[in-house]
């Protein structure tokens, strides 16, 4: 990804991320979230990780946020009245600033490491990623699927109780 393209996409991504946080209307916030997730996928494609980029769109932009929108619409949420600054807001802001500072420091420190490392053949390709996923990382992969299964069963149990 050329620096010019990076800065354009980065500016858009930051803008949409701010849109998620600052919008009072929950539907607008969710739409900004879709835009942001899509732009993240653009970064992945720029980093030669086409598969991850596409999966990002399928899973997050295409499924997760649709469910967000669904819930927002079914609950008929109105535009939120801004909450006054309380201790929770101060704490959240402090946590955000600290995390941001840590990330900046980490990024500056690691900026030269592996910057020019050559990509292996098939890097980011579906076949290579699948091979690694099903051999070296097979256990974490299966454990994650177990986690999702637990979530599904939990949802079914919760839905059953009422009926």
């Amino acid at each position: 990804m050329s620096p010019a393209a990076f800065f354009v996409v980065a500016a858009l991504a930051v803008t949409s991320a701010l849109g998620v946080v600052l919008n009072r209307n929950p539907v607008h916030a969710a739409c900004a979230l879709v835009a942001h997730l899509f732009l993240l996928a653009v970064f992945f494609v720029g980093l030669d990780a086409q598969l991850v980029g596409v999966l990002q769109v399928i899973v997050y932009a295409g499924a997760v946020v649709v469910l967000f929108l669904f819930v927002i619409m079914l609950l008929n949420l109105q535009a939120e009245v801004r909450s006054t600054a309380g201790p929770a807001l101060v704490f959240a802001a402090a946590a955000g600033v600290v995390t941001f500072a840590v990330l900046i420091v980490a990024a500056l420190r690691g900026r030269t490491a592996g910057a020019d490392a050559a990509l292996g053949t098939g890097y980011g390709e579906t076949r290579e990623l699948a091979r690694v996923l099903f051999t070296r990382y097979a256990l974490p992969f299966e454990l994650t699927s177990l986690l999702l299964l637990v979530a599904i069963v939990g949802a079914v149990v919760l839905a059953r109780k009422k009926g």
Partner: protein
Amino acid sequence: MDLAIVAGKAIFVLLLMLQVMGLGVFFERKVSALIQDRIGANRASILGFAGLGLINTLVADPVKFLLKEDIVPAGADRVLHFLAPCLAVIPLLVTFAVVPFGDVLTLGDRVINLQAAELNAGLLYVLAMASLGVYGVIIAGWASNNRWSLMGGVRGSAQMISYEIAMGLALVGAVLTYETLDLQTIARAQGELIGGWLPAWGILYQPLGFVIFAVAGIAESKRIPFDLPESESELVAGYFTEYSGSKHLMFMMADFVEVVLVAALVTSLFFGGWQVPWLARDGFHFPWGATVALSSPVVAVLQVTAFALKLIFFTWLQIVVRWTLPRFRYDQLMKLGWKGLLPLSLVNVVVTALVILLWGKAGA
């Protein structure tokens, strides 16, 4: 020069698809008239001239749509109301980038792959764009500030998400068979011959996959018998009730583009894509031994024509289906998706995987 070639391919595939879409509208008018035993639209008068019958109507329709007043209902979310039709059309149009419309065109030293974008994750890209298509529906439903629209939007998004799963799993069988996600590679693999004479089109290896994909594809395009999101007898026009003029036209266009897209994917995956039986890069090789040598441009033209004809056929087929079947009830729709197609597609995956494991790859 390379950039010009890429742009040329993109424009070509866009125009090809839009032409077929126009033919789809023609079929919609004429086939429906045939099926319902009437003549069909035949008397639009353009400046007092109505001599061409249906052709006049096809010209008059878009002009009328473009010139009509654009109405935004009171209390609607103006920004999202404007964005929704764009979100409905754009993901569909960009999907055609990965659909191959021919093999290669050799011009001098240059070998041009007749596919607008070569993506490593081609089929997943198709699914990603299909999953983005939901936003046009759900946002249109919400932004219109109308209960019918909202009902349509919620129905539409639930339906599209449900059938996307079966659609994706139906593709897994094809991916297992061809060991690739690239539609061009899949189309090339279908040029092989079984027993020296039968073209190895995908439908022979994946008959069940084809049925599931076609049904889920029609459900994705939200047309009868799956048109609950817009069902005019219940919801006026569903999620696009509150759209007029060119925005309404964009939703109609999204409808027909999706029909063409399903036709293009069915063609590429299950009916050989651009393959003409026994036509290789250097000409025909008939199974009885005769050969006809052809130059590369001629072969390319034949392949693109074959692809277009298959595309038109499957567009026509979907429109016949639309005018033949009644609409599902919502519970039937969900039952078919989750209890019918989903288990069937899982069976398809398991059986395909077993066959490949026990008897080796299909093509080999």
